């Protein structure tokens, strides 16, 4: 149900309410409400506040500023490059340095700070895309494909399925960087989080709710919705939508096919295989523990590269929509 920090009597990303929780980032499978005390970055706390209401006992942990947890343990939150506010947590105890990465990526993201490579003794890494088939292409290429598909289908709109926290804002920011300055239309579930990103200093341009816009006006538009709404009743209001999905899983054709996606966009907020292995090499820990995802392959890579490693069977972290 998470990782327990025994000497400080605290949990990292617990899946149930506990007395004291350290939360790496705001995604629902890592951040849950109802903890006695929640220690997280200001942005993550803001995200949790939107989702669960403002909780008592929130402790802000600014990046790179150590927090004493008691029991001789110090926690330092470091940028993880996953989504706005996401952090790795460096734990120091009796001269040992342990890093729990939470979710992370290494490729550039306009909406959050980049992953900080930090030396440690024990590195506890995620492995969502821990198979060598996963290589995420540069995001600019995928955005270019999206814009090309839009231009080739002037009668239709492009409907992009993207996770409401992080992925959606990253896609919008990249569209803006690619010169797309038309309005971007949003599913209702996206609006709050986009406003929060803007309030946290991430400009996203002209955003409008898709609801209530006449069908004809949406021809040639880009609409963003949560993956679950792609083939749902909601999308019937749109003019013959070309369904796209922004996800690392889209690298595998059959995954795209299973979701009924016409335009798979390989855009992920997680490290791909090369990023995972590069990160382990750069951090160069004495030992690596591998948590949620495809642990076996990364474990094998560690073995092939004479690195001490073990897999932790953590359940409850689901990234099917990433």
């Amino acid at each position, binding site marked *: 149900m998470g990782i327990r920090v025994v000497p400080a009597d605290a949990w990292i990303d617990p899946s149930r309410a506990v007395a004291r929780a350290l939360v790496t980032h705001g995604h629902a499978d890592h951040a849950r409400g109802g903890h006695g005390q929640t220690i997280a970055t200001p942005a993550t706390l803001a995200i949790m506040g939107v989702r669960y209401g403002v909780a008592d006992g929130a402790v802000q942990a600014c990046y790179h500023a150590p927090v004493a947890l008691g029991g001789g343990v110090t926690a330092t939150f470091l940028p993880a490059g996953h989504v706005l506010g996401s952090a790795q947590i460096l734990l120091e105890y009796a001269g040992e340095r342990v890093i729990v990465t939470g979710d992370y990526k290494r490729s550039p993201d306009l909406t959050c700070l980049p992953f900080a490579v930090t030396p440690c003794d024990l590195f506890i890494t995620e492995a969502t895309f821990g*198979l060598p088939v996963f290589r995420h292409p540069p995001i600019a290429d995928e955005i270019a494909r999206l814009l090309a598909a839009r231009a080739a289908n002037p009668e239709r709109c492009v409907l992009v399925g993207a996770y409401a926290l992080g992925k959606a804002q990253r896609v919008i920011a990249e569209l803006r960087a690619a010169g797309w300055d038309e309005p971007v239309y949003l599913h209702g579930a996206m609006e709050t989080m986009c406003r929060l990103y803007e309030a946290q200093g991430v400009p996203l341009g002209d955003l409008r709710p898709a609801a209530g816009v006449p069908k004809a006006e949406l021809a040639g538009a880009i609409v963003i919705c949560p993956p679950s709404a792609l083939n749902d009743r909601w999308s019937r209001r749109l003019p013959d939508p070309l369904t796209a999905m922004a996800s690392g899983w889209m*690298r*595998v054709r*059959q995954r795209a096919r299973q979701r009924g996606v016409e*335009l798979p966009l390989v855009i992920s907020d997680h490290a791909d295989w090369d990023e995972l292995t590069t990160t382990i090499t750069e951090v160069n820990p004495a030992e690596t523990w591998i948590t949620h995802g495809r642990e076996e392959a990364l474990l*094998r890579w560690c073995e092939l590269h004479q690195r001490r490693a073990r897999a932790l069977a953590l359940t409850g972290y689901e990234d099917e929509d990433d």
Partner: protein
Amino acid sequence: MQRFATLLDGLLLTLSRNGKLALIADYLRETPDPDRGWALAALTGAVDFPAVKAGTVRSLMAERVDPVLWALSRDFVGDTAETASLLWPEPEPAPQGAAPTLGEIVTALSIATRASAPALLASLLDRLDTAGRYALIKFATGALRIGISARLAKVAFAQAFAVPVDEVEEYWYGQSPPYAPLFLWATGACPPPRTDLLPLFRSFMLAHPLENEVISLDDYVAEWKWDGIRVQLVHVNGETRVYSRGGDEISASFPEIAGALPFPALLDGELLVRGDQQGGEAGGAASFNALQQRLGRKTVSKAVLAEAPAFVRLYDVLIDGGEDLREQPWTSRRARLEALMPRLDPKRFDLSETIAAANMEALAEIRAGARNAAIEGVMLKHRASPYVAGRRAGLWYKWKRAPLLVDCVLMYAQRGSGKRSSFYSDFTFGCWDGDPDAGAELLPVGKAYFGFTDKELKWLDRHVRQNTVAKFGPVRETDKSLVFEVAFDSVHASKRHKSGVAMRFPRINRIRQDKPAHEADRLETLRAMVT
């Protein structure tokens, strides 16, 4: 090659039939010869390079990727070609010049040997991107498996050039890739290819399942649906060929049949082996199992010919002498067929008798009684029906007998391939070899991977993941708590299986969450159904 790769990706991601047709038609119109012909061959399963096998790809990968990482990746992706395309190391420096064309690939692969094929394939893969590599491997190994039937490809061809699909079917079988004469005909540059010079296959007329249609025996005639192999015999210019369903020639496997039609004709019938099962008495047909022993043999020994002699039960005549009868109503063709019978060797041919029944209720009763005769069911043919390629609404129906049912216990599961690549969707199930409360064990009796809905598939996938007790490579052993009601057409004795029985056409009929595993059926129940 890039165009073909784009076509394959488009076909994979396009769900609607019309969308697929449009993609293929656009490709065929816009792509030059011979590439479009080779693509058409790939879509219709007509590409074969004997020097390239799935094993060639696997051994190329074994030289480049750690075997454990390969196995984990292959298991996740669910498709060897796609896994290889994703894991292929990008060459350094990046290759110069254009990607190879399909024509260039064909030229290179068709002169390749087993020894030279791996290096050749590797050099081609180096010149392509991920999508191109996927398309090349699919193309070179001849197994696209992208859910496109040969028929759909022919319909797309007809659509591309605005020609009737029946004519495409008619001229198709005399041609071989890259089909230059077909394109010349379809684009209006040349007259159609001749079909009367060789013993060519004509597409079979097929039947729709009879579901809710109300029909009368005044309009339809009933025949048994025999459980053998549908075949076509064609004699032209002194040569006879025997073809099976897909137009594959099987003359060499059944020389006694090929040698028994000495005059020009085109006959449609069911290939069977002599035995006492189908038809009841000696001189009838043996079960499908007996026929299977003879399938796929390239040469046939005298002993086999004597032990399991084949014959054809005739359904129809398409061409008699030089006369094409296909436009004529079934009744006329039937009369011509009956008139032909005296000229045929009765050891090798008999006539598929029509069933006399006053009405559909009486026919239903006769059909229900046909269980032991290992007959698949009943065919209903409109008396006025011409002989047309494929399934045409309202002309022919198949009315299968109700399936047999047993309750089995889920034992093992494996991930599927294709669009089920991440789901545990291939199930092995078993029956008890005695009283489960007295320590009996489950023995596997069959495997099935369909019969359930997409929603049930998700549920089953979760059940397998949550109830796994052991893993053997990609196979998960479950806790044997879930009961399936399995439907199947028949069951045969089998020495290959520990349980001693083999089911024909098993599918998951129902998931019996309500039924405890120890109440599932015992082997003796299945053994009693053996035909």
